[in-house]
């Protein structure tokens, strides 16, 4: 029986922060290698999805990288404006991660298949 869970219930860390004054970077870090590989192999989080969520053209995405050593995905986007100048809404870009939290991930229960998250 297939089920879905929001990414915030699967990942250990979902965060955003400045990477210098012109970029913001977001990290999704998983609790286990199994969870990470399930997400990586499942192709649930893609550049195209990030582009849709943040309405940033795919070619403007600075990094979209799976980092096996940390069971993590890193996504770097341009800031809407240079940090800390007129119109700033988030000086440290610390609250820009929220759209990632509700990405829905299909998961299988114990009877349903190879991967079990809970």
């Amino acid at each position: 029986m297939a089920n879905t869970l929001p990414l915030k219930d699967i990942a250990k860390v979902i965060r955003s922060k400045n990477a210098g004054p012109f970029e913001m970077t977001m990290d999704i870090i998983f609790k286990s290698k199994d969870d990470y590989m399930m997400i990586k192999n499942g192709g649930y989080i893609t550049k195209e999805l990030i582009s849709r969520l943040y309405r940033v053209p795919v070619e403007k995405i600075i990094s979209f990288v799976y980092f096996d050593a940390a069971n993590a995905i890193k996504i770097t986007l341009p800031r809407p404006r240079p940090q800390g100048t007129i119109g700033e809404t988030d000086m440290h870009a610390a609250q820009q991660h929220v759209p990632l939290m509700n990405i829905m991930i299909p998961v299988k229960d114990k009877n349903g298949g190879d991967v079990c998250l809970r």
Partner: protein
Amino acid sequence: MSKDEIRILTPAGMLGYGFPAKWFKKGLDMNPDVITIDSGSTDSGPHKLGLGAMTCSREAYYKDISLLLEACFEKKIPVFISSAGGDGSDEHVDAFAEIIKEISKSKGYHFNIALIYAQMEKEYLLQNLKEGRISPCGPVEPLTEEEINSATTIVAQMGVEPYLKVLSERPNIDIIVSGRTYDPVPIAAPGIKHGFDPGLCWHIGKIMECGALCAEPAGKNIFGVLRKDHFVVEPLNPGEKCTVSSVAAHTLYEKSHPYLLPGPGGITDLSDAKFEQESERSVRVTGSRFIPSEKYTVKLEGAKKVGYRSIFIAGIRDPIAIGQMDEIIKRVTSDVEEYFSDIPKENYQMVFHIYGKNGVMGEYEPEKDFKPLELCVILEVAAPTQEMATAICSRARTEMLHCPYEGRIATAGNIALPFTPLEIPLGEVCKFNVYHLMEVDDPTKLFPIKYLEV
């Protein structure tokens, strides 16, 4: 320093934020070869470079530096402090030198100090710009003569070379205070000086420059041991531990890319780095590589003043008004433009921050149709003078308070104002306008060194 290992104590990720003396002293008992602490960041905004402000108060720096100097004097452990004051301007290197002199005088300390400066002459930058040696660092416009001239202060991030120069000219230096510095440099410098693997030197620098932020839970004091083929990091607070996942995850922190970390003179490549649990509270790292770049570049950072700001803060509870918010804002904007028609539109800016709608995420907010109970509206006005910013803000506020809108039944006032003054002057606002890479022939010469004794 011993040859087969280098022992490094970093009491915190940021000088001036304070650190627990108890764990720092425990670190001192572990025979460090050097104490390093970074003071720099662009993260608290462009006003430091734009207005000459320091990240922390002089008192906060005085307190932290006092602990470092005591260790330096009593235990004869050198202290390296990078990116003085936050921005690493010449003025802030001198301010730190003054603090060190003051403490030394009152305590009777004696030190040999090296000051390394990182501020760039505009003439020199203009020349390099003309010669095509300056390019954008990330999503930034190409640099122009005009932007160089309008910047208040421009610094360059030094690499390890100026530190190496000090260490070979004065092997017994007690204290180094440097202007803007690539954060891992003070940690990497002794290792590179003694011929350790540069990949490991830079990687341990990358991890430790944030103090024990790589531990679980995140902390302040951290101790690192660099050896020929690996390094080990361990937090000093026994309530914290470094784990494979906490250290690997920290590698991501505030970086554009998870395993390719560009810096002055090359890239640290962590794609083959291995993280292993050494003891219950420490992690061993191997396999980090340094790839020298073909051309040596330094990162330039600069900011300029762009005007003065005033704001008003208003709450809205009326559901009819909340439903008409886009119309109300349109009306307020056109009213202000008409009223101040003698001021060219490009001379001032009005930005409405609407909390409850998209105040935090602005253009990146994906939720469009949320119906809030209340809204908080902050109007930000920027103009060439404080008076003009406040006048525009005031006009917008009175229009917003009284303007009619579709379906209005609350005819006495549209907004709830919590504070007086109703218009709040914020002072000057700055903007990062230089964030570029510059090719350099001699990465030492660019950063002048001054030696002094106190």
